[in-house]
């Protein structure tokens, strides 16, 4: 019986039964294999082969991150800052520019607001007008000593009157405070300033800074003691290198999380006074109209731009040659104010080789230089290293909150040293704080050997520090025979620091705003470094008695004009300039009767006198009291905003009802273009945070809650959800499908074989 069965199974006389058995065995084996493979692989492979879990997708764009369909909590608890719009209207009339900056504060909340906005202006701007427009009323501001202006403003604020206050924090940083903006209301604040047009390397240029770059403020560790003669040995120790750090540190928005703020419109009416050639905007797209040959109207091509980088406009005369002399005057009362530009002739380098030089390059690789700035700085420095001559010697210093001096002392600029310096510079990375003073100290430390050589310090930085005064004092104390050439890097460098440091260091200031400008601007800088300087300059007026600024004329470098401002009693006779270009004497005489009419020259003269007083104070040529007295007198006479004077405007009518609270909103600013938020952010986290609560001691009826933002600094603005689908189902279905297909196939084959 059993034989028969065995036979039956194996014989081909029962094909169907035998086939079913084969298939069953096959499937059983398959299942066993699946289980075996599956469980072996479970403990052997941690990474599932082709399953769908991949790396997390990054945030796409900030707009998307904010538009989630799921919102758990209403943000009604947060006050919304007033919106700010900026309109800059500049008229260039020959040698000067008159700018009107209108800031539009729109309170979109349902509360009464006080808005505080920190903004930059050109370093040499003379701010003289403040207007506040509330509804159809225009209130014109008055210049007052700073404390007095503050008291007037605070009182108006308490009384519910709309008031505006313009204060100077640095010569290039100003603060506008605007109290009592009603719910849903728009208030305009308008300031006006006068500014000289700069001449740089054969071009006229106008710089409009639009954003205050975040500053590194060193911790108050080092005490500086000021002992003055007559103080009998008792002096005051100032603890903090940046006592006003809270006033120059507005909140900076992270471009990855927030859309840019502070839309800005810019219009420049250029009346050059000569037939205009090329007009170029270096960092913005512009539209240029030409009503006539001597006039251009420049507007932004995009209409409005976020306030996140400097606006730089340059123009050239149509004729090949730049005018080498410009003389302008303005009569105010019984005095005449004179502004003179004289570009000394470019004397070809004499037959002997230029004097050998010691060049100390200093490069800032702090976090604020992150992004495009460090690339510009490295490219500039590598270009400079390539320009060194065989007889030169050099050294390289890099600094953040630490410092490295590359060679123990200056080394000859031979191929080997230049090569190793170049590869060192190429490897630099931007991070950390900005301790600039020790680096300047190291650069100015002069061993005194070979005193016949020219010693030049080339300092590349964005100048994003708050302790400018400490740096100036270091330069004054240690400059010796060294000359300091500042190279300003990035989209919003601190031009006040650059120009003042170059002035104190008897060098020059070059601004590099983009990678494209590196070569051109560095070539100009090397023209200054390599060519003879115009020295020993004196100015004499033949008939008029004059109050001249600068009082001591600086040395003038190649392609730079000497700019003089003077207050004279009468416009008669001539002005004679004498000096030496290299070894040759040079004289030029300007007849004053030929001076053309200029605008706002008295303000420019006063502004420069004020700058002179600040320099004299730094150099200990004037006591602080003398300097302050001189500044206050000039400022009140010429109606200028300075360190000691402010403009204040108060609307007479009280508007905020009693009992209505007033909220303070410190308006946030953009991160300068090209900056790396993370690098600055990490650095800021380590700084003592004294900000934010600065007005916490509020007076009775004024609720001054600093604007609270619903953003946790460390967490992302939104949470990216991981991929949470596997292809298990898909694989299994496909696999089963294939097995089924195969089954059908086998059946078909068997059938055919059977037949």
């Amino acid at each position, binding site marked *: 019986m059993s034989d028969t069965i065995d036979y039956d199974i194996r014989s081909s006389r029962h094909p169907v039964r035998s086939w079913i058995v084969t298939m069953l065995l096959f499937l059983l084996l*398959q299942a066993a*294999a*699946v289980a075996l*493979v*599956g*469980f072996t*692989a*479970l*403990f052997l492979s*941690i*990474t*599932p*082969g*082709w*399953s*769908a*879990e991949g*790396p*997390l*997708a*990054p945030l796409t764009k900030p707009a*998307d991150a904010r*538009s*989630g*369909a*799921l*919102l*758990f*909590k209403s943000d009604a608890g947060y006050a919304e800052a007033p919106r700010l719009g900026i309109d800059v209207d500049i008229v260039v009339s020959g040698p000067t520019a008159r700018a009107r900056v209108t800031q539009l504060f729109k309170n979109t909340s349902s509360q009464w607001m006080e808005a505080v906005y920190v903004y930059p202006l050109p370093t040499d701007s003379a701010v003289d007008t403040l207007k506040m427009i509330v509804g159809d009323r225009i209130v014109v501001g008055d210049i007052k000593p700073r404390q007095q202006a503050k008291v007037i403003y605070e009182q108006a604020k308490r009384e519910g009157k709309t008031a505006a206050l313009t204060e100077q924090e640095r010569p290039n940083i100003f603060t506008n405070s605007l109290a009592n903006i009603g719910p849903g209301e728009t208030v305009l604040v308008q300031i006006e300033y006068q500014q000289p047009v700069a001449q740089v390397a054969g071009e006229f240029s106008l710089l409009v800074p639009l954003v205050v770059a975040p500053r590194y403020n060193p911790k108050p560790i080092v005490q500086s003691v000021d002992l003055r003669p007559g103080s009998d040995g008792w002096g005051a120790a100032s603890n903090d290198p940046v006592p006003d750090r809270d006033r120059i540190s507005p909140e900076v928005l992270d471009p990855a999380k927030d859309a840019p703020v502070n839309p800005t419109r810019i219009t420049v009416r250029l009346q050059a006074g000569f037939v205009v050639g090329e007009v170029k905007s270096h960092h913005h797209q512009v539209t240029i109209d030409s009503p006539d040959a001597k006039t251009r109207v420049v507007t932004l091509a995009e209409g409005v731009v976020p306030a996140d980088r400097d606006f730089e406009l340059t123009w050239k005369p149509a004729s090949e040659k730049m005018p080498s002399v410009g003389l302008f005057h303005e009569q105010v009362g019984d005095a005449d104010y004179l502004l003179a530009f004289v570009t000394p002739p470019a004397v070809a380098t004499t037959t002997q080789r230029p004097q050998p030089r010691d060049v100390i390059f200093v490069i800032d690789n702090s976090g604020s230089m992150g992004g495009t700035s460090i690339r510009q700085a490295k490219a500039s420095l590598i270009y400079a290293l390539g320009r060194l001559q065989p007889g030169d010697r050099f050294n390289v210093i890099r600094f953040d909150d630490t410092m490295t001096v590359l060679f123990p002392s200056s080394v000859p600029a031979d191929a080997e040293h230049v090569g190793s310096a170049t590869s060192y510079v190429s490897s630099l990375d931007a991070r950390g704080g900005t301790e600039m003073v020790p680096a300047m100290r190291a650069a100015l430390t002069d061993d005194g050997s070979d005193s016949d050589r020219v010693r030049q310090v080339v300092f590349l930085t964005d100048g994003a520090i708050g302790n400018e005064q400490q740096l100036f004092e270091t330069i004054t104390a240690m400059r010796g025979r060294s000359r300091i050439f500042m190279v300003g890097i990035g989209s919003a460098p601190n031009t006040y620091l650059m120009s003042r440091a170059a002035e104190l260091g008897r060098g020059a200031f070059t601004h590099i705003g983009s990678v494209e400008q590196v070569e051109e601007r560095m070539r100009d800088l090397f023209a200054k470094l390599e060519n003879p300087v115009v020295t020993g300059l004196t100015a004499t007026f033949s008939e008029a008695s004059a109050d001249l600024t600068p009082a001591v004329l600086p040395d003038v470098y190649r392609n730079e004009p000497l700019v003089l401002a003077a207050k004279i009693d009468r416009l008669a006779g001539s002005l004679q300039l004498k000096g030496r270009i290299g070894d040759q004497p040079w004289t030029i005489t300007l007849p004053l009767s030929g001076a053309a009419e200029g605008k706002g020259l008295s303000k420019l003269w006063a502004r420069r006198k004020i700058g002179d007083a600040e320099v004299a104070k730094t150099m200990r040529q004037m006591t602080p009291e003398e300097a302050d007295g001189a500044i206050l007198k000039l400022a009140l006479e010429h109606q200028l905003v300075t360190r000691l004077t402010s403009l204040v405007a108060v609307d007479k009518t009280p508007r905020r009802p009693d009992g209505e609270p007033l909220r303070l909103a410190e308006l946030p600013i953009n991160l300068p273009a090209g900056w790396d938020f993370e690098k600055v952010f990490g650095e800021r986290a380590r700084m003592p945070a004294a900000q934010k609560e600065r007005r916490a001691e509020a007076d009775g009826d004024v609720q001054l809650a600093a604007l609270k933002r*619903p953003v*946790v600094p*460390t*967490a*992302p*603005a*939104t*949470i*990216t*959800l*991981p*991929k*949470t*689908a*596997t*292809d*298990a*189902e*898909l*694989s*299994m*279905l*496909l*696999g*089963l499908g*294939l*097995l089924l*297909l*195969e089954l059908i*196939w086998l059946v078909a*084959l068997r059938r055919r074989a059977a037949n």
Partner: protein
Amino acid sequence: MPRIIIPLAVALVGLILFSHGALIHAKAIVAQVLLDRAFSQTIATGRPVKPWSWADTVPVARIEVKRLGVSTIALAGSSGQALAFGAGHVEGTAEPGEAGVAVYSAHRDTHFRFLKDVSIGDEIDVVGRDGRTFRYRADGTSVVRFDASGIDPGTERPELVLSTCWPFDALTQGPERYVLHATLIADQ
């Protein structure tokens, strides 16, 4: 010979595909057993315990929905590796019970398959690694894009979000995520 080779090759491909899918599920099921054991040890010892010696992540929470009788162990991190074995606690989000939102993600076809059955009002228990249980109540669901979850990481309230891929029965992956939101009601 091709008569045998072609069906054999097709069978092999089918076998590989099927076993790949089966493997994912097998890993998910087996790993949970090991993870559950490791998590109990974590609570008992107070120290993170690796579920198997070469694991690169540790269990951090147990998520339970009593009404549905489901329980799953969540791992630290939401990398693909972690999600193969259990739910993942998304990096940078709050711990259970803390102020802020705790976000857990898992695959729609394995550990968070039950999410489609959770309805508003259901209680979700989350046991943290210290053994404390936090009870949340589901109060909202939504479908969002992965990069626009709308989850506010700055919230001050203790909240819970469980997320998985959407739609549940799709065969391929997509950008949409199903988000179940819950708020803390009690902690024991």
